[in-house]
């Protein structure tokens, strides 16, 4: 008996109404639909054929796009560790070190988030939406490497419940759940989210316990370049923009390599999963604001530095382009992107409380997106109204 026949005949009935495990249907369905494309056919009335694309495929593109940034990020965790301790055990060991530091975070984020989503889906007897598959990977990628796992668990739970499920689940949320997780961590545990000690792991890979016989080198500072910008010690002339572009600077796990992020951006743009309108206008907005600030201040980073440092590129490519929380009209997308780009740099440069502004800017953008869409749609409405009066 072929696997699909076996599943359809023996396993499927157990989960259907009246079956032994009918309450777990949502979970069964989510696995089954990953294995096989659903068999449901079109209703009697309406469109009789459908395009093959579905939400699973779209979300999968986001996950694929995240892979380069995740890989370079993992390597960088090990690389920064080696730099701090003044050793060099090769790129492969550095990558392994990063992998061991990164994986538990992924597991925790997925376990907590998907657990809640599946439980809610079972309660509502709905299909499990795929949105969290992207969110669950984004969360560990945007936190400092030394974030304790329990904090990730608490923040993820908070975000999935209060930023997503109470609004009605994937597609209904106002704010980007991954950024809500980050913001929750930032405000609930500020010490674990900023400072010189959170972005570089100096202890063991798994739990950062001190390794005997090692010590950080003299003059080591785990501060991110943006922290230097915030306290006024940043020097744009001597600073290597190339390091920031390639991703060998301290920072949250996967935000550091602009190059890897751009690779992901290419995939998102080619597949049209992310809106080029949003992505480009965030960069344009950020560049404009950076240029203005650089023109008036000598110590300010250059435009290229601004775009490569911190989470700006990551936010532009993966966060701002979330279609659910962003603007949904094409005109609105330009405004939304520009707004985020400008705000990210503004917050970064003028609010010393927040060394990085990308997270805040996107969340602010999320809050404004419905208003921007409202204005755009209203212009269509007033055009229609004028036609009547004419």
């Amino acid at each position, binding site marked *: 008996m072929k696997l*699909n026949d076996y599943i*359809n005949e023996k396993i499927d009935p157990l989960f259907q109404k009246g079956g032994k495990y009918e309450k777990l249907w949502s979970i069964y*369905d989510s696995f089954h*639909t*990953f*294995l*096989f*494309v*659903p*068999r*449901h*056919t*079109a*209703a*009697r*009335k*309406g*469109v*009789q*054929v*459908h*395009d*093959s*694309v*579905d*939400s*699973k*495929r*779209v979300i*999968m*593109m986001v996950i694929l796009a995240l892979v380069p940034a995740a890989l370079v990020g993992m390597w960088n965790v090990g690389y920064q560790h080696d730099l701090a301790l003044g050793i060099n055990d090769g790129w492969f060991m550095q990558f392994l070190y990063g992998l061991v530091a990164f994986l538990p975070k992924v597991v925790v984020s997925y376990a907590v988030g998907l657990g809640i989503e599946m439980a809610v889906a079972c309660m509502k007897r709905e*299909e499990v*939406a795929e*949105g969290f598959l992207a969110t669950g990977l984004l969360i560990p990628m945007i936190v400092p490497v030394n974030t304790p796992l329990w904090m990730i668990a608490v923040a993820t739970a908070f975000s999935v419940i209060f930023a997503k499920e109470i609004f*009605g*689940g*994937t*597609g*209904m949320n106002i704010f980007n759940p991954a950024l809500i997780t980050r913001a929750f961590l930032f405000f609930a545990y500020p010490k674990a989210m900023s400072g010189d000690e959170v972005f570089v792991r100096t202890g063991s890979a798994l739990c950062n316990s001190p390794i005997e016989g090692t010590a950080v080198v003299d003059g080591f500072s785990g501060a991110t370049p943006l922290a230097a910008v915030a306290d006024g010690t940043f020097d744009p002339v001597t600073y290597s923009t190339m390091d920031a572009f390639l991703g060998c600077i301290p920072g949250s796990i996967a935000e550091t390599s602009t190059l890897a992020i751009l690779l992901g951006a290419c995939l998102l743009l*080619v*597949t*049209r*999963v992310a*809106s080029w309108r949003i992505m480009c206008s965030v960069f344009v907005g950020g560049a404009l604001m950076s240029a203005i600030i650089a023109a008036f201040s000598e110590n300010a980073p250059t435009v290229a530095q601004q775009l490569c440092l911190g989470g700006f590129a990551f936010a532009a490519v993966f966060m701002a382009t979330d*279609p*659910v929380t*962003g*603007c*949904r*009209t*094409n005109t609105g997308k330009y405004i939304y992107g520009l707004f985020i780009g400008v705000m990210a740099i503004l917050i970064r440069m003028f609010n010393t409380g927040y060394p990085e502004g990308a997270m805040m800017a996107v969340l602010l953008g999320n809050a404004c997106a419905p208003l921007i*869409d409202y204005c755009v*749609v209203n212009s*269509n*409405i007033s*055009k*229609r*109204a004028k*036609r*009547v009066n004419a």
Partner: protein
Amino acid sequence: MANVIKLKKGLNINLEGTPEEKFVNVKEAKKVTLVPDDIVMCTPKIVLKAGDAVKAGDEVFHDKQYPEIKFVSPVSGVLEEVVRGDRRKVLGIVISNDGKGTSAKLPVIDPKTATVDEIKQAMLDGGVWPFLTQRPYGVLANPSLQPRDIFVTALNTAPLAPNFDIIVKGQENDFQTGLAALAKLSKGKVYVGAAASTTIPAVNGVEKVTVEGPHPAGNVGVQINNFKPINKGEIVWTANAQDVIVIGRILNGKCDFSRIITIAGSEIVAPAYAKVQAGASLADILDGKVKHVEYKQRVINGDVLTGVATGLAGSLNFKGQTVTVIPEGDTTDEIFGWITPGLNRYSTSNTGLAGLFGLFKSKKWKLDARLKGGPRALIVSGDWERVFPMDIYPEHLYKAVLAYDIDKMEQLGIYEVLPEDFALCEFVDVSKNPVQQVIADGLVKLRKEME
């Protein structure tokens, strides 16, 4: 101003089973069934009983709201049965065809000399008034009103649908009579939307509008929106070229309701055109034309975007243009749909290679009826707009209809759309929403509220 509409947005779904430009014979219909549900929001009042003899052109039922709008029998024979469903709703009126073709005597009307009332009366009595659709809502035209304009589409862009050029060929006279009659009924003008390459002759007193672009360029609603949009309070009547021909025939005194349709789709042995009787059973129409296969097939009364899967038990829609047969696909288990390269999966989305390389345009596709995904809330934005060539925000209008916010619906252009205009949105929708059904339900509810 030259009347040209150039559309870029839209999508031609390149399906297997395109009809060849030749006619095949179809078994003469032993029975025809009139289905009141073919007309949106029509409540029938049946005037005959089972067992009554009818001639072609005799009234079978009329609309309750507008009793002057008659629906007539297309054939002569005996009214066999009135099929009723829940709460005695009329599902179909079955008339057996005696094949003699005896018909009621029809007056010959010359639209050039006849008065408006004479034309109206002839159309109402002849049973061709229902071929006019009134917008907003897409309902029976109210005979006591005069529309702002009448739009006729002579361009058929729906998948596997017949080319109106072929239909009009040889029936130019009836077509002209029909158009001339419509010209009298309209307060404004009669516009005929057709492709630049059309062979349909120009008609005096009727304005031609050249329409270019992929489907839904042929949808009359799309043409109106791009040319002369409907405002709140205005009414517009629409028809398509084939229906105008039937109107013309009746006015010329010929009681003939036959239609030229395409029998198409990947499950048809030799897809082609055929002349059939309106209301003929699909089993008769498709007799001997469907491939013999082991899997289940889906028989669609209409095209794949707007049709109804009635199966062989159905009967050709009153305004039917196409009968399509495709695989049902309900026993297909396609593995790992979310990550396969997608060379062999039809998709306009660039998330698969078929979309990325443009294979969905260059290759012919055999599509089955699967949704190929689960229903979700709207996630992706911008996809609908790519296939919706109207100055309307489809998603915002859809959401207003879902919420049944009447003010918003009006403001966003509900009066300018019919479900068919959203068909491609439903087709490309990543979240697999029943878009047409939502719009259709919203329109019904809105009309009840407004009247």
